[in-house]
């Protein structure tokens, strides 16, 4: 008996690539459903936003001309001469912000549900690296339209990197491609934004996703302890995937709404010779660090305040990266859970400093 054509094709492929175990794996893959399930979507949404960034980024590449003389004009050209150019540019700008936002949410939900614990230490580490890379994406992409705000924000941002002891000057020089922020910086940031960071990001994203697939979804303690008959599981395929798509569509709708109704502006072309305008601000996800540095007094214990601040953030970042390896295990008798407290303080600090940054 002749098999249907689709099955013959599958058989042909299976013979060569041994797909059956993969299919079995996907069929068996299940996702636990409980009151914390909502946090499972955050990673998927971040991934979806990354794909949108990739797609709109490639489209923008078709018209963008890096270079001090052409960058601003080419974005203006994209925004008012290329059909729907304004839309893709607006989506790319808004998408970048939502991307970083969802990674933050994803990270904190992971932290509070203790999903970083054994065996998921490396999933956490790769995830944190992805967050840093996403912020680097934002920082480098912000300069590309070559407008006044971005120009001075880049100046301030690279200056901050420059205060690091020993390596600071070298980092600043490499980032700027010279002593100052110039057209050379623009060329570099362009290279970082479209080649270097995407390449590294893809590697870490691959690892991150691979780890998730190998280990399955993490169950919070409150759920994991339940007897099997009280646990609810649904198949990943198609049930959870459809739910994922459902979440993506909502995010896409929000993204489109923002892009269409609050289109991203272009600003004034950067003039390296003009004095810095007032109100220079970094992107919101750098605001808490920027604002903290402003609050540190110029000299603390004989060390320059800014140096101290940058060092403190570096140490804090490193500690956060290594959370799975030094976690303070709480005892059942503890009324205050130490890790929850740390996470809460970190989150509160970020939120308060960000708000203060925008109010001051």
């Amino acid at each position, binding site marked *: 008996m002749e098999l249907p054509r689709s099955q013959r094709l599958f058989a042909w492929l299976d013979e060569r690539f041994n797909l059956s175990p993969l299919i079995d794996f996907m069929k068996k893959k299940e996702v636990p459903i409980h009151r914390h399930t909502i946090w499972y979507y955050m990673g998927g949404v971040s991934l979806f936003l990354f794909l949108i960034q990739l797609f709109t980024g490639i489209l923008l590449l*078709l018209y963008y001309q890096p270079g001090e003389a052409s960058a601003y*004009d080419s974005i203006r050209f994209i925004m008012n001469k290329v059909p729907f150019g304004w839309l893709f540019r607006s989506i790319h700008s808004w998408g970048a912000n939502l991307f970083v936002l969802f990674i933050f949410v994803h990270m904190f939900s992971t932290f509070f549900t203790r999903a970083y614990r054994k065996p998921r230490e490396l999933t956490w580490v790769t995830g944190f690296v992805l967050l840093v890379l996403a912020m680097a994406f934002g920082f480098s992409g912000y300069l590309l339209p070559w407008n006044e705000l971005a120009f001075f924000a880049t100046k301030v941002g690279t200056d901050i990197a420059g205060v690091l002891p020993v390596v600071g000057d070298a980092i600043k020089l490499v980032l700027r491609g010279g002593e100052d922020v110039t057209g050379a910086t623009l060329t570099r940031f362009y290279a970082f934004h479209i080649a270097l960071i995407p390449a590294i990001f893809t590697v870490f994203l691959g690892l991150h996703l691979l780890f998730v697939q190998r280990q399955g979804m993490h169950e919070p303690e409150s759920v994991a302890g339940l007897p099997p008959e009280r646990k609810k599981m649904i198949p990943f395929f198609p049930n959870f995937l459809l739910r994922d798509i459902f979440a993506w569509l909502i995010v896409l709708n929000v993204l489109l709404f923002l892009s269409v109704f609050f289109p991203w502006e272009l600003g004034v072309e950067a003039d390296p010779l003009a004095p810095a305008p007032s109100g220079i601000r970094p992107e919101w996800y750098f605001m808490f660090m920027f604002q903290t540095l402003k609050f540190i007094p110029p000299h603390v214990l004989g060390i320059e305040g800014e140096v101290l601040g940058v060092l403190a953030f570096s140490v804090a970042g490193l500690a956060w990266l290594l959370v799975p390896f030094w976690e303070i295990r709480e005892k059942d008798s503890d009324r205050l859970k130490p890790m929850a407290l740390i996470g809460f303080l970190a989150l509160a600090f970020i939120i308060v400093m960000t708000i203060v940054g925008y109010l001051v």
Partner: protein
Amino acid sequence: MAESRRKFLNILIGGGIVGWLASVLYPVVSFLKPPALPEANVSALKVGPVADFAAGSSRIVKFGRTPVLLVRLDSGDFRAFAATCTHLDCTVQYRTDKKDIWCACHNGIYDLMGRNVSGPPPRPLEQFVATEIEGEIVVSRLEA
């Protein structure tokens, strides 16, 4: 009942996907189609066949954001200058009878090399290049 509901739902999903794809593809395809002026910075502008310009005539063409005065000299040669007077940014014109470039605002006068020869203009006009390519005049920026 359940069957018809399922059918309806499937149609809705199928239609939604098609509509969504169309609303993605339409902007993408439009985006890929290059606009009339395919570049942000105009680097060269075709202004028409040589035959359209009589000797001793002139025309102002919009070179991106800069108006450019294109003059065909009596000798048949073409010259191009930024049509912006260097005094107060009025638009200059070629005077066929007097064979000079003139700004009506304050009577500033430039020669046919674009040099300021009398009146208030402090500097010569910015030069552009007019080249004949296959019978057509192309205006471009003077390379620095």
